[in-house]
């Protein structure tokens, strides 16, 4: 081996490209580790887990179909519809997507939640003041996507624009009101003492399903 070849091999060793035996180092990361690392990064980035816990709590609270908040003095109800995506950071499955009219409240989704996944994105139907808004929302930014607003009533172009803006803002306000009703509970003692055990009972399909806690 020439001096030049020896120097090249030594440099490759120092860069970690080859081992002491001169063979290529096998440092390709394990696929499962990469996936788990990515899931964890998504979970922690900007505290996305708070948004996921919010949507999971909302799913549990909304099943009864009762009004969850009041906006402008009028009750608002929420229904999860069509598509729901769950994500987790531990275990064998890091993402589950369920589709179907009643999929969000299905036993399959509840079991997945019980195993440690949380709702990451979902399609919601918000009903308020005899108006219905349908929108998709994700846990990380709580952006509103592909929203269907109530039918416009105005006929003039300018009035229609103003009405559309008002409806979009109302959809956003409804989402904020739900979040604002969740956060004080989430930060308080009742979260771990009452809400979480009741949610877990609901996920497991246990008798009673913590209805009392949900009503509170």
């Amino acid at each position, binding site marked *: 081996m020439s001096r030049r070849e020896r120097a090249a091999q030594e440099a490759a060793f120092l860069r970690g490209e080859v081992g002491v035996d001169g063979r290529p180092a096998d440092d390709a990361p394990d696929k499962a580790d990469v996936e788990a690392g990515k899931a*964890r990064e998504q*979970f*922690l980035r*900007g*505290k996305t*887990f*708070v*948004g*996921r*816990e*919010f949507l*999971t709590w909302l799913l549990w609270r909304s099943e009864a179909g009762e009004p969850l908040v009041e906006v402008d003095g009028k009750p608002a109800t929420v229904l999860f519809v069509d598509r729901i995506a769950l994500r*987790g*950071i*531990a*275990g064998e499955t890091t993402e589950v997507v369920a589709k179907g009219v009643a999929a969000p409240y299905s036993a399959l989704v509840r079991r997945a*939640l019980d195993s*440690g*996944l*949380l709702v990451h994105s979902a399609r919601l139907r918000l009903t308020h003041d005899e108006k219905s808004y349908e*929108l998709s929302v994700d*846990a*990380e*930014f*709580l*952006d*509103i*996507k*592909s*929203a*269907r*607003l109530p039918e416009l009533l105005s006929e003039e172009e*300018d009035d229609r*624009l*103003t009405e*559309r*803006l008002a409806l*979009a*803002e109302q*959809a*956003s306000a409804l989402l*904020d009101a739900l*979040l*604002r009703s969740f*956060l*004080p509970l*989430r*930060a308080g003692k009742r*979260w*771990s003492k009452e809400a*979480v*055990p009741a*949610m*877990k009972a609901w996920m497991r399909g246990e008798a009673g399903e913590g209805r009392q806690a949900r009503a509170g």
Partner: protein
Amino acid sequence: MPILRGAVSLSRFLAEPPAREPKTWLAKGLRVRAFEPLEASSEEDRSAGFVELEDHDATEFSAGNLFYAEHALFSWRVDQLKVSASALRAELAKWAQAFERDQGRPPSRVEKADRRGIIQQMFRARTTPRSKVVDVSWNLKTGHLEVWAGSRKSAEEIGEAVEKCFGVKLLPLTAVAVAGALDIPDTALVPTPELSLGTQSEVRDVEA
């Protein structure tokens, strides 16, 4: 134009507007970062800036075209010139063959690079830029600013431009930001082990 019609996708922010008469600072700020069309002679292949909501070539921002009740409505236009890489390669290969036939030798690296530049310029002159427009609504009474697009990348680019042009801080309306507005301390927001994590050691891992 999503503000005017179609399905709605919104990235939501809270921005405290400057405590001055909006008619003076808003149009001025938008004009600072007004859209400028790409020049055929320039080397730039992307241009982005503010345009009027109803006329994507206009950057006057007169009060009548900017203010709708308590809202300021405008758009963000991005023009991009893309020269097809495969077409460029094919044209260059054709030229190299012709060069070799005429000169009896293949072109040198420098000659090839020069020719590539000429072909690229020729293609640029022929290509029409692709234009994309995203609407923005800013409720000057509540401070809510909405970017009417599903793409987070667009929302972030527009958010940055708004912050620079108007000297405001935009707060994305995420769960954590709303918690901050409600004076909920950061320490109260750690993952709930029973909901999202299997074991206590995993909680410790995440917290670390």
